[in-house]
């Protein structure tokens, strides 16, 4: 339905005026919450996520002895969707998002430098319009950088979809970059995250059915999108660092 309008068939423009390989407007700021060790605020289109990181702090009975434990908590605000919907923290979908983030950062952060300690990542979703997992990963990366926790590289994420539904056989199906919520409801899509904007995929989540032949195209477009996002996020971090240095002069 999002692509049924004449604008797509005639000019290959999506409902919001983007082409197949264009990202939405991405803005981010770090150090937004001075009381936390690290914090960030990220907007991918209308998806707005706020992240605070505290750590490494003293762990209490942490599971692993030789590395830091990472705990992720996601709170989705009741006003984040179009209709007001209160989601409790025990929700299965939220639990899965938390566990995905936990596993991702357990491998990219240098946790062996902080044995017996705990790193808390607290995320608040203020507005949802597609690419939720991607926004959560990007915001967490920025907040962890702001907290000064050593890591191998940026984890940047974005979504990629396909214009075909899983049953159609047409060869003219295009991959799409960065879907909003209307597109996510109708089209197959996946979320991919890379380490450092290169070709190493750190996260790949696909919950919709899609023909196997389409996956490679979607993945390629997604990885390219991650590279673009890495440049944007790196720019934000450097800008913020410059400001800090200038204020100390």
């Amino acid at each position, binding site marked *: 339905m999002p692509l049924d309008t004449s604008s797509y068939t005639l000019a290959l423009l999506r409902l919001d005026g983007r082409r197949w390989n264009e990202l939405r407007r991405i803005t981010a700021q770090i150090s937004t919450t001075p009381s936390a060790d690290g914090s960030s605020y990220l907007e991918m289109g209308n998806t707005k996520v706020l992240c605070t990181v505290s750590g490494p702090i003293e762990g*209490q009975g942490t599971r692993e002895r030789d590395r830091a434990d990472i705990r992720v908590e996601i709170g989705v605000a009741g006003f984040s969707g179009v209709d007001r919907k209160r989601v409790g923290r025990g929700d299965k979908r939220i639990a899965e998002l938390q566990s995905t983030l936990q596993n991702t950062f357990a491998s990219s952060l240098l946790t062996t430098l902080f044995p017996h300690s705990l790193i808390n990542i607290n995320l608040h979703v203020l507005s949802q319009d597609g690419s939720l997992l991607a926004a959560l990963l990007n915001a967490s990366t920025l907040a962890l950088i702001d907290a000064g926790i050593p890591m191998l590289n940026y984890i940047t994420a974005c979504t990629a979809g396909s214009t075909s539904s899983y049953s159609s056989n047409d060869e003219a199906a295009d991959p799409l970059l960065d879907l909003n919520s209307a597109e996510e409801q109708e089209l197959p899509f996946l979320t991919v995250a890379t380490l450092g904007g290169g070709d190493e995929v750190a996260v790949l989540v696909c919950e919709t059915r899609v023909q196997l032949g389409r996956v490679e195209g979607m993945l390629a477009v997604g990885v390219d999108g991650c590279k673009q996002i890495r440049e944007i996020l790196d720019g934000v971090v450097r800008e913020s660092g410059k400001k800090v240095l200038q204020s100390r002069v």
Partner: protein
Amino acid sequence: MAPSSTQHVLLSPAELSYIHASLSHNPPIRPDGRSATQFRPLTAECDILPGTNGSARITFADGTEAVVGVKAEVEKSRAPYQVTQDELIGGDGEAQRAGLNEWVELSVEIPGFRDDDSMPVFLAAMMSEALLADGEFTKRLWINRRFHWKLYLDILLLSPPLSYPLPLLSLTAHLALLSTRLPRLKSELDEDPLFDDDWDASVYLYPRNKQSLLHRPPVTLLVMAVSDNIIFDASKEELAVADVVLAVSVGERPRSNEGDMEVDSGKVRDLRLLTVRTVDPPSRLTSSGVPNVLNTATGGTAATTTEKASSQREAMVEEGVWQPPRGGAKRKLIAAMISKVLEQGGVAEEVMDGLDGVELG
């Protein structure tokens, strides 16, 4: 998410008695040099979430931050249990407007606390109590006899609660309600509600005329007292030595003539008290100091059993040795605290004027 020990202020009995003594002074000497009624700077912004009917975010000077989003939905009204003759005849529209408390749903989310923990539940109950106390608010949600607006206020505390979060959450909710807009009603009387699609034509929940607001949502302030001094906007350290802490909710009486109050209204507000709640001050959880006569290290004699130790300690009131406050507050002190909040040109007016000045997007 931080461990709970960081929520208690780590001050020794000597430091506690020092702060208590300086706050009992006349005029009180506060650790950061403010006057008794001076607030710390805060940043406030409105309309930050375009997907909501109203939103606000306030950051206090100590780094605590809160975001509030207001969403409204049209809901079918339940038929009243007893329909009186007057209502059947369909009398004056204004007289029939009555709201129900269930049309407002308020929820508070605090990081590190579950939804059914006592703190978020208690804070939500206190704030909705203040909002619904005068019955004026729910009247605004009435559309016609068959439909009404259901308002959802979601209050998020973004930082772990360093000090008692009630005033921060209340101010943010107040600001969010001020910025709340509802679509303009196009239908008439009791037919199915039809609204104007143009968001620019939307109506503020708290309408404003050229000068100022005609009626404002309530505000809850935390007031504390040490000896006879009444202190506002207490920091963590000051709360740790408080004798009495009250949460006072203040509202405004709606103005009767909406037309000709422009010249002589000026800054005079008709404030009225909505609710008062006592808050158990964190000073009760502090440990007391040991006076020299009971300390063997300084030549005194320590008691042999714990019962003797506590009874000796209770009997002794030595200046300069900290003891957590016991018992309640004098009635005169409570009355003085409440009237200090409500007085003309006082703290509540200042807070409301300040919030009114925040530019609405």
